[in-house]
């Protein structure tokens, strides 16, 4: 046999392949829809388990990782491991010696108040097994900070974990020096160190805080919390009978073992670490009880490193109200809510009848070996609706789709810029070196189709073996050719910047990127030439593979602001730049 060493330059399909694709017989290999059920190890169904596998803190990385059902590990990858040392928090500490993580509490603060926020090791128990992880003030998620619009609070951050850290106030248009961008606005806070932040909240809505150092570890293991900023207007949102603040996350585990992290940089860099245990507010199942007819307001945040969600509530009608930095111009009925990492959506859900409504994440995965779509349904929790009727009855208000004229008026001064040519263009792409040969071989032949969104990690073996030493994710300025932190963009304060993002489908590994801009707000004015019908202010925007997305940035907040992919491993592999908004 002749061993092929060169890259694939051209790929063709035989006519027989083309005709064969339409044969019904192919469909018989498609597994049935999977549902792990509430409280189950959601993503663990069908995982390929290695007999006798042992793993714990400090173990080597030569363990196989969980593979999706029906997906074999490529023989050419067996026995390989990512280069470099591994990391798990606590350096082998017995989790039993750590304080147990507590549920989140609500901290109501007013203008001028001070909050001490301490990141520290805790013990988290998931499906009966204890792990050393992280928490803010001993809580997962961290305390829900509830403040009024235009309040300013002081947060004394105390880093008591075993890594450097820093606090980023995601989506908040605050003073630049408190943005928490390590290397841009501050140095990392060393283990044992402290930092004082002043956080001003100019916009009502849902925000979140998380570290901006090794997010792939710190955020994934519990360092996240929400901020809910209340408008002074009592009817800012429609009326609701209750509210729930949910942070959706995931962990990658093999049986009862947490898959360790790269010590010097992220692994799973090709598509980010996609967990197989789905969590709501840090727990593997969510439960809520409501009376019949209840309208429940859900404040949803995606805190996963890489996973994009498509969630719904067992067919209960939903109404989209708001996203990252504002309400929508027009409320709209939706069948499900799609959340890319770091995005927030506020939705009202009405539970019309007594019964159980499953909160599910339902997606179509791709089996890259069989070349098939595979439905996956993970049940994240259950809302139990009792026979008593909700009072007041907000059925009429729920059925009314409001127009938020103040939002539209606020946007009006930006509309003349919607159709102008972009001021700046970024191409999203990737460069690799020294990846395992089998990875390179497969990825150069599996190029006939790239899904606009990869909802799960279809090839976790290849992904695991890709580290930030081998993969560099790139934001490339199309006008200068400069990349990532070499880009030197300056715009005057008060300007409106039209930024075009193009996610190159011909890169080595195209996938979607949730692009986040710190400290400003932006509008998605068009996607692939189609104008956005219902505008909302955003700070994080998903860019599907092959898509061209035009953004208008309201560059009103002076300072040096990071623009980056919010897939933690992509950020850790360089996919970031800085937009300098020069004081006017």
């Amino acid at each position, binding site marked *: *046999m002749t*061993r*092929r060493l060169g890259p694939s330059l051209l790929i063709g*399909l035989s*006519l027989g*392949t*083309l*005709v064969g*694709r*339409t044969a019904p017989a*192919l*469909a018989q290999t498609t597994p049935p829809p999977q549902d792990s059920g509430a409280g189950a190890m959601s993503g663990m169904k069908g995982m390929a388990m290695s007999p006798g596998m042992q793993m714990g803190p400090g173990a080597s990385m030569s363990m196989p990782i969980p593979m999706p059902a029906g997906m*074999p590990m*490529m023989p*050419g990858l067996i026995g390989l491991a990512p280069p470099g040392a591994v990391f798990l928090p606590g350096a082998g500490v017995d989790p039993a010696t750590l304080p147990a993580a507590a549920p989140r509490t609500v901290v109501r603060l007013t203008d001028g108040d001070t909050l001490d926020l301490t990141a520290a090791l805790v013990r988290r128990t998931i499906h009966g097994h204890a792990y050393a992880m992280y928490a803010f003030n001993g809580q997962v998620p961290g305390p829900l900070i509830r403040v009024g619009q235009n309040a300013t609070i002081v947060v004394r951050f105390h880093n008591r974990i075993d890594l450097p850290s820093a606090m980023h106030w995601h989506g908040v248009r605050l003073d630049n020096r408190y943005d928490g961008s390590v290397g841009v606005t501050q140095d990392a806070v060393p283990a044992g160190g402290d930092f004082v932040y002043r956080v001003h909240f100019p916009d009502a809505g849902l925000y979140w805080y998380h570290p901006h150092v090794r997010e792939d570890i710190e955020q994934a293991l519990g360092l996240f919390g929400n901020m809910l900023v209340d408008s002074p207007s009592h009817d800012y949102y429609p009326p609701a009978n209750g509210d729930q603040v949910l942070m959706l996350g995931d962990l990658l585990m093999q049986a009862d073992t947490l898959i360790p992290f790269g010590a010097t940089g992220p692994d799973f860099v090709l598509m980010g670490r996609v967990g197989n245990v789905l969590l709501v507010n840090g727990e593997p199942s969510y439960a809520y009880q409501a009376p019949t007819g209840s309208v429940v307001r859900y404040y949803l945040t995606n805190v996963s490193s890489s996973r994009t969600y*498509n969630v719904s509530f067992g*067919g209960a009608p939903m109404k989209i109200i708001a*996203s990252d930095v504002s309400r929508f111009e027009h409320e*709209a009925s*939706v*069948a*499900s*809510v*799609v*959340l*890319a990492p770091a995005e927030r*959506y506020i939705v009202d859900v009405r539970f019309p009848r007594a019964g159980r409504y499953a909160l599910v994440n*339902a*997606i*179509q995965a791709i089996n*890259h*070996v069989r*070349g*098939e*779509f595979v*439905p*996956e349904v993970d049940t994240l929790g259950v809302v139990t609706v009792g026979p008593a009727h909700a009072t007041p009855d907000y059925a009429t208000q729920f059925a009314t789709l409001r127009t938020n004229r103040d939002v539209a008026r606020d946007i009006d001064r930006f509309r003349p810029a919607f159709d102008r040519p972009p001021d700046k263009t970024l191409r999203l792409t990737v460069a690799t070196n020294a990846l395992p040969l089998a990875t390179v*071989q497969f990825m150069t*032949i*599996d190029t*006939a*189709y*790239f*899904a*606009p*969104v990869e*909802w799960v990690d279809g090839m976790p073996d290849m992904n695991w073996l890709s580290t930030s030493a081998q993969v560099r994710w790139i934001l490339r300025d199309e006008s200068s050719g400069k990349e990532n932190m070499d880009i030197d963009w300056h715009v005057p304060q008060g300007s409106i910047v039209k930024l075009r993002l193009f996610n190159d*489908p011909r890169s080595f590994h*195209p996938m*979607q990127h949730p692009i986040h801009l710190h400290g400003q707000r932006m509008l998605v004015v068009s*996607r*692939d030439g*189609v104008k956005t019908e*219902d505008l909302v202010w955003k700070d994080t*925007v*998903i860019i*599907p*593979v*092959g898509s061209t*997305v035009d953004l208008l940035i309201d560059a009103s907040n002076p300072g040096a602001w990071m623009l980056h992919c919010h897939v933690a491993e992509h950020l850790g592999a360089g996919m970031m730049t800085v937009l300098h908004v020069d004081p006017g």
Partner: protein
Amino acid sequence: MIARSTAWGLAWSIVLGSAGGAQGAVGPNLGPYDIRLFATPAAPAVTGSARLVFAPSPFGVSVTADGHALYDVRVTAANLPAPASLGPYATYIAWAVSTDLAHWVRLGPVANGVSTVGPVDLDKFLVVISPESSLVAAHAGPTVLHGTSPSGWLQSFLTHPLFRGIPE
């Protein structure tokens, strides 16, 4: 006449269209939203292409509650003859067809120029354009244009040497 509304007829027309080869590259050489449409002997002068565009959504990507991508289809066609010239037909209709040819979903009317129809929520599908007797008629007319969704190019590597432990 080859292009009929039967599965075999469509499969055969696919072979003919692909074998022609004169219409340029397909699949890998197009973007993830682009569909090359092939003419059939029913109307060989027709040319066309299609582009998938996410249906309007607050989320940037549009999917159904069970996760199927939801696309509008922007069809660009030229040289479509008058439908009546092909038989008792009044309009052209675009269809999304499951890859086993069992399910035909009416996407909407198309004409020469650009027509946006849809939405379609099939994972893999064919786009078929045929003349029909009315906007609401069941599918009956001959295929004049057809193409495969980009997702249809997903390949099986189950027997590839990489997955059998055989070095390439």
